[in-house]
């Protein structure tokens, strides 16, 4: 008689291993059409930044965070020379970034505006004229 004892066990084990491997692979790979946090970077609606930061790289410290029904205003100060400025965001878009008073942000100029980052992660984008023509976000369906 043919010993069939190990076959179902082996088959089930293989299926389990395959399912686990595929599970790992599936989680490592994002869907092509998935909305992501990246496209939800808060975009400033108005700004008065120290001139030194507009065209290059520099650091600013957030000295005040003022939230209102209309939006959020960060009052900032240039680390290099103490010049003050402000960055305004509409609504509650920027709250998720969790920026507290005393946070130091790196401002990096790109062709479309200025990117504000904290510990290497972008927390907000300040568009210039070109950036404004490129940025928009609206959910149309519920």
């Amino acid at each position, binding site marked *: 008689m043919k010993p069939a004892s190990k076959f179902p*066990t082996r088959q089930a084990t293989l299926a389990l291993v395959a399912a686990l491997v595929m599970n790992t692979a599936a989680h490592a790979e994002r869907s092509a*059409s998935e909305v992501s946090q990246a496209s939800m970077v808060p975009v400033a609606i108005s700004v008065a930044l120290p001139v030194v930061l507009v065209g290059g790289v520099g650091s600013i410290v957030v000295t005040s965070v003022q939230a209102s029904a209309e939006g959020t205003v960060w009052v900032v100060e240039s680390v290099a020379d103490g010049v003050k400025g402000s960055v305004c965001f509409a609504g509650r878009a920027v709250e998720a970034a969790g920026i507290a008073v005393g946070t130091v942000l790196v401002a990096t100029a790109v062709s*479309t505006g200025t990117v504000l980052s904290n510990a290497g992660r972008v927390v907000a984008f300040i568009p210039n004229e070109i950036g404004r023509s490129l940025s928009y976000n609206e959910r149309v369906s519920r």
Partner: protein
Amino acid sequence: MIRARLLLRLLVGAIAIATAVTATAGQTCDNTPPDTVSVARAMGLAERVQRSLDASGAQVVIIARAGQDLTKYGLNWSHLAFAYRVDTPPPYGSNATILGTYGTGTAAGLPYPATPRGTWRIAHKLNQCGTAQAAIYRQGLAEFFLDTPFRYEAAYVVPNLEVQAALLQVLTDDQRLVQWHTPAYSVVAYPWSTRYQQSNQWALETLAGSLEPAASTRERAQAWLQLHDYQPTVLHIDALTRLGGRMTRANVAFDDHPNAKRFSDHIETVTVESMFSWMQRTQIAGMPTVVR
């Protein structure tokens, strides 16, 4: 007896794993903010695409990005959207635009005015963080490429003028934009079923509905597409891979596919390549332009 115990233990283990996997399915949304380099790359591509679209002279284009590596299926592009220009360029000689231009220069020794940059909107369908649901969004070119693409490249086709005019009517009207939208989402939705709808399929059915007034529902849009010989891409996905996908991701389903095709690993779905090819064949649009 020992064998039975072993099998029982294995079965309990499998159920526990399956339960854990099901619990996490659909929670794949990456909440990590992007880094400065990827934002700069996305912005750079958005700007190059803007220049290319402006130079095309089109008002509406159909645009693709490489959000995911699908080369194992012989596909270069993964996600399709409509892009349409919302501003009207000022007439030649106008000096209304100072910033946001391509700059001024001279031609034959005479100064020529700066060319204003176009403002383009993307209309597309996005899956909600790996769940079985999706929604329609209107975004800027920057947001379109900020979704961490696999390759920082884009491809677009320019529809003929009649098609552009028909699409523009729909793209600027919120009600019509969602007319062919079904929230239930599967990344491999069957093209001839209305149970689920993936992003490229929404674009295809919306295009059909824009061109044919009688194609006012998804069923009718699909009938029109069959009549006009749209051919979906056939992906060969074996049973084990289908099972793994179904178990681990909420946005993967195969139960809308006919059994005969499904069980022969023959999965038909709407892809960018199949749409580009069909639009060219039917003269709805021209050859794709690639922007890198």
